[in-house]
């Protein structure tokens, strides 16, 4: 009974959250796109390419934030055997991979006109590419095992091991000289981004977060039902 008590509470809570997160995603996205594409100035150096930042930077934050969440959920699953933690980590992985992919593609489209190259193997770009492959590896491990309990344990260990990459991404621009520029927002002496440009950046980051919560709820629910289906079908076979 205990194993199903928590998912039931999860479903009740997310039932209340889902309409709000979905509505927030739409409103924040509309505002973010309005300010990001229209009602904000171009940059004094790079002109309109600065608008790519409103996709690129929030997507990068999401990629790192979602992986950190997966690592925490994996630790909870390994230590306390919480029945939902594995499912949350599993459900979050494709969302994180999608944001990391968006980050890589938009960064490439930003670098081409401004830096003069689509890609370089500097520490920041390489560590983000590794993050993308970690997501793919994590997803692949869930597919590789027939027994979901063993798959969950192997995937959780991979998520925890890959977590060392997150601080490397964050501090790569400080530890090594890279083509990628340094931190703009949390510099120790305030933001280096003009308030008119900070507004769409924050709005898009909040919109992506609301989107993540919405899609995560869909995916965790699908996982909970899939687990229940498995139990039912097994019991049907046994008679």
């Amino acid at each position, binding site marked *: 009974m205990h194993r199903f008590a928590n998912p039931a509470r999860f*479903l009740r809570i997310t039932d209340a959250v889902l309409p709000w997160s979905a509505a927030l995603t739409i409103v924040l996205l509309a505002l973010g796109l309005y300010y990001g594409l229209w009602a904000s100035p171009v940059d004094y150096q790079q002109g*309109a390419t600065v*608008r790519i930042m409103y996709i690129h930077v929030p997507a990068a934050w999401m990629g790192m934030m979602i992986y950190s969440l997966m690592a925490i959920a994996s630790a909870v699953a390994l230590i306390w055997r919480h029945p939902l933690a594995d499912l949350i980590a599993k459900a979050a992985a*494709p969302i994180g991979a999608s944001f990391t992919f968006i980050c890589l593609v938009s960064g490439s*489209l930003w670098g081409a006109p401004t830096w003069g190259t689509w890609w370089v193997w500097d520490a920041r770009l390489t560590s983000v590419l590794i993050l993308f492959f970690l997501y793919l590896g994590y997803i692949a491990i869930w597919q590789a095992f027939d027994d979901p309990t063993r798959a969950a344990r192997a995937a959780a260990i991979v998520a925890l091991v890959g977590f060392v990459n997150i601080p490397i991404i964050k501090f790569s621009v400080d530890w090594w000289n890279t083509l990628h520029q340094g931190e703009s927002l949390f510099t120790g002496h305030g933001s280096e981004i003009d308030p008119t440009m900070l507004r769409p950046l924050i709005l898009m980051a909040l919109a992506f977060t609301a*989107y993540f919560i*919405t899609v995560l709820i869909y995916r965790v629910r699908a996982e909970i*039902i899939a687990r229940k289906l498995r139990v*039912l079908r097994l019991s049907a076979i046994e008679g």
Partner: protein
Amino acid sequence: MTALRAFFSMGGYAAYVWPAFATAAVVLSVLLLASRRRWRANAAALASLQAARPGRRGTRATPGGGATPVAASLAGDTAPAVHRDA
């Protein structure tokens, strides 16, 4: 009109700015739709499986319009019968 043309030209960087936004739009839309479709499909499969065993729970998993997946999954979770079967 000229303002609109300037908007779409993105100061000459249209070939970089618009694909970046388009990539994000396509990837996020596909993921959202795929996730929701899988949830609904799983919920429907569960509802039909439970309907096929009327003695236990056929009455409680009755479909009810747009909210079917929520209702079905909730009904499935609060009932202990499923767990005891395992």
